[in-house]
């Protein structure tokens, strides 16, 4: 086992274990924090696979922004602190969910494992540098990249419109609601 493979295995194990904990934890906030561990160790996985810029993007966007958003949402929806037993759907749905999850993992893993069999890959770190990816993004992928910025703008405007409380409706609908009264 080479050093790169060992490093990859360590990050991958950490990511998989933290992902399982993130979906099974009975503490709401702990679930979000396990997500941080998953996403952070996935950045390590990308690094060992030679994708330097993707790893940095993962840290910046996912760990930096997405998780903070999730924690803010938990805070603003008055998420319960401490051990909770009502985080799960009824038992029957839980059983069906675990069957579906195992089936998905088995299907994806089985099909891809037969596809790759015993092949190995040698990551080339020079192909993941910011320079190489930047040239690709602003060269051949310029149009999809512009579409992405349009998508982000649309999501920004959409989020504003959805979460905005109309000034006139504010007084009419729910004067007793502290959240609407505050905004």
């Amino acid at each position, binding site marked *: 086992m080479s050093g790169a493979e060992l490093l990859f295995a360590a990050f991958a194990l950490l990511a998989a274990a933290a992902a399982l904990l993130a979906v099974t934890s009975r503490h709401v906030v702990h679930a979000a924090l396990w997500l941080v561990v998953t996403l952070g160790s996935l950045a390590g996985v990308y690094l060992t696979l030679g994708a330097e810029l993707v790893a940095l993007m993962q840290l910046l966007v*996912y760990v930096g922004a997405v998780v903070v958003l999730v924690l803010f949402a938990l805070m603003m929806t008055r998420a319960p602190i401490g051990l909770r037993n009502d985080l799960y759907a009824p038992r029957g749905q839980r059983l069906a969910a675990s069957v579906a999850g195992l089936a998905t993992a088995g299907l994806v893993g089985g099909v891809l494992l037969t596809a790759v069999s015993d092949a190995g890959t040698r990551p080339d770190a020079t192909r993941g540098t910011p320079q190489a990816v930047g040239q690709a993004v602003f060269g051949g992928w310029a149009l999809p990249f512009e579409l992405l910025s349009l998508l982000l703008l649309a999501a920004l405007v959409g989020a504003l419109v959805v979460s905005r409380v109309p000034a006139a409706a504010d007084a009419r609908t729910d004067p007793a609601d502290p959240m609407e009264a505050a905004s």
Partner: protein
Amino acid sequence: MIHLAGPVVLAAVLAGAGVYGLLARRNAVLVLIGAELMLNAANVLAVTASTLPAGGLAVLRGGGKAAPVASTDPLLPGQVLAIVVITIAAAEIGLALAVVLLVFRRRSSIDLTQLRELGEASPTYEEHPDDGELTAAGHEDLLPDGPVAARPVPVVEVTP
């Protein structure tokens, strides 16, 4: 050299955990965590694919006829796709959390098993489903002053 089975199994575990989290959780924010895990499973596969030599898996599994030639594709499709997915995930979670907050503001709960209807008022809409756990916990601030327990559970009247 990294054995390809590693990333593949990692992606499978992430996808399975994502599906489980998406289906088994009641809290809407925790459901979104499951969705994020599934997006990351796709990302792992995209980045792994970007490390394959020119010709992809077919060359690697060719059986030693010719040494794999390192890919020189300047477009780096796998890595650019991963960045695209990360961006889309950021847009998605921003919008989804705005919707979750709106639901919380209207219903004082983001318990997905309690949310039976999306609409504000329809003939079949019932604000307080069977077990009543939500009604007592979530709506105190909507009730008039006075002891909550003494009052009958309010029913939303739908004007025709």
